[in-house]
């Protein structure tokens, strides 16, 4: 109904019809197809050696060739990513709540959290292996370390930016800290939380893949490094495509959960008041 507001309209849930769905995702799909076509043509014309950039057709062949082992690798990585992302998101929100309710905790913890993001894998890897062994645990820990931080920072900032009028209202009702958190802070932090979760979702799978370099029996990271060491660039690309697809799927899942969790953000849409 709104004439002039493109932004909010663009946010409306793409509810319902297949036509709408098509309209939403056709451009991206077309672009993708075009890109792949261009890539194939480029490689063919320039005669690029396949170990530099394999043609999409080669990548597809590599996929068919190795498809027997791929489901196992993919599942392993997906498992690690989901577990790590889940725990990471919980940890991020819990820490953010803690940090915003007690200023001292924030001042003490924030620097430590940043430090946690700066420790290179090269140092962390042996320690993690020594502490957690070779199972799924060290990978989950790496994913957790990668994902909790964006969630923590954007949730914290969103909590700090909550409307003071609403906080004052709740306090005037004699609300406890917990009630203020539940009724005002958390709901108003949801957009920020989801922004952080989106970033985290994009990193989760990559985190798992990196973690698999520390020692693993299965996983896409393993698949990619094995292929790379054998100069099978085509297989490396199969691995990358799978990692990208997993990441996109996680990102899309976050998007959907976001919509379901903040219905009010999509209400009053026939209007701007």
């Amino acid at each position: 109904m709104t004439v002039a507001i493109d932004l909010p309209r663009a946010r409306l849930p793409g509810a319902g019809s297949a036509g709408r769905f098509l309209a939403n995702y056709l451009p991206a799909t077309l672009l993708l197809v075009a890109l792949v076509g261009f890539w194939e043509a480029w490689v063919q014309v320039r005669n690029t050696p396949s170990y530099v950039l394999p043609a999409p057709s080669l990548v597809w062949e590599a996929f068919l060739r190795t498809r027997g082992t791929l489901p196992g690798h993919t599942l392993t990585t997906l498992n690690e990513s989901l577990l790590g992302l889940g725990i990471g998101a919980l940890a991020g929100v819990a820490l953010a709540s803690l940090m915003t309710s007690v200023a001292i905790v924030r001042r003490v913890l924030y620097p430590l959290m940043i430090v946690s993001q700066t420790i290179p894998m090269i140092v962390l890897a042996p320690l993690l292996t020594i502490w957690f062994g070779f199972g799924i645990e060290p990978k989950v820990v790496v994913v957790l370390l990668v994902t909790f931080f964006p969630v923590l920072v954007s949730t914290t900032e969103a909590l700090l930016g909550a409307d003071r009028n609403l906080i004052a209202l709740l306090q005037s009702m004699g609300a406890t800290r917990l009630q203020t958190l539940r009724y005002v802070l958390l709901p108003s932090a949801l957009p920020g939380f989801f922004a952080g979760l989106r970033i985290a979702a994009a990193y989760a799978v990559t985190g798992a893949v990196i973690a698999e370099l520390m020692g693993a029996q299965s996983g896409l990271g393993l698949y990619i490094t094995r292929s790379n060491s054998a100069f099978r660039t085509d297989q490396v690309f199969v691995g990358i495509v799978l990692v990208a697809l997993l990441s996109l799927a996680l990102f899309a899942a976050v998007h959907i959960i976001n919509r379901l969790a903040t219905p009010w953000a999509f209400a009053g849409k026939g209007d701007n008041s």
Partner: protein
Amino acid sequence: MEPAIEVENLAHAYPGKPPVQAVMDVNMVAAEGEFVSLVGSSGCGKSTLLKVLAGLIRPTSGHASVDGQDATQSIGVAAYMPQGGVLLPWLRALANATLGATIAGVGRKEATSHARELFERFGLGGFESAWPSELSGGMQQRVALLRTFLTPRSTILLDEPFGALDAITRREMHAWLQDVWANERRTVLFVTHDVEEALTLSDRVYVMSKRPGTLVAEFRSPFPRPRGREIQTSPEFATLKGQLLDALEAASS
């Protein structure tokens, strides 16, 4: 008996360069069960006074107590409706209306069924599950008023609760408010910019001078209750209203 609201030598300045001295030397009382109004020109410090009583601002000096509790040290003693209403965007209308009660520990069922009835009476029937953004300005204000009254407190602070209402709806709300007040006898401190409204609803009306706000006059509204259209059109009422307006004008210049 101790007064329900007691303010002594209250002053508050908002920090800044230069600081804004919002209120100064404010002294007032409201007895238990009394309906007291506060009028004054825009920006004179009415909302500031209410926020102090609600425990949201610690005044720079002076003393304020609500129901025997020091308002500068405690919060949540009175039920407070801020200016503009203020609803939570993520709660539907009904949940917004019951919020104060829920926070105060009233059972959800009880609060909800009570609120449902009042939705009808407030002309909000059918909008129980609307989001705040789907309500008109006046509807939002009524939901906020409802919320305040459903909060089980013996003292109520209302900051311009009818600012967005038309004459007719406002008259209905007046009738309802007088009804409730007569039955429950809660103490009410009522900020309004409508002199007629103040005289219709109150036992007493304070007039606040322009900033720094201080209470410069006090009127008693002696009319028998309930006060309907007849009283509002009576010559005594008109006279008193004229006097109050004059006082307000004098205080505002």
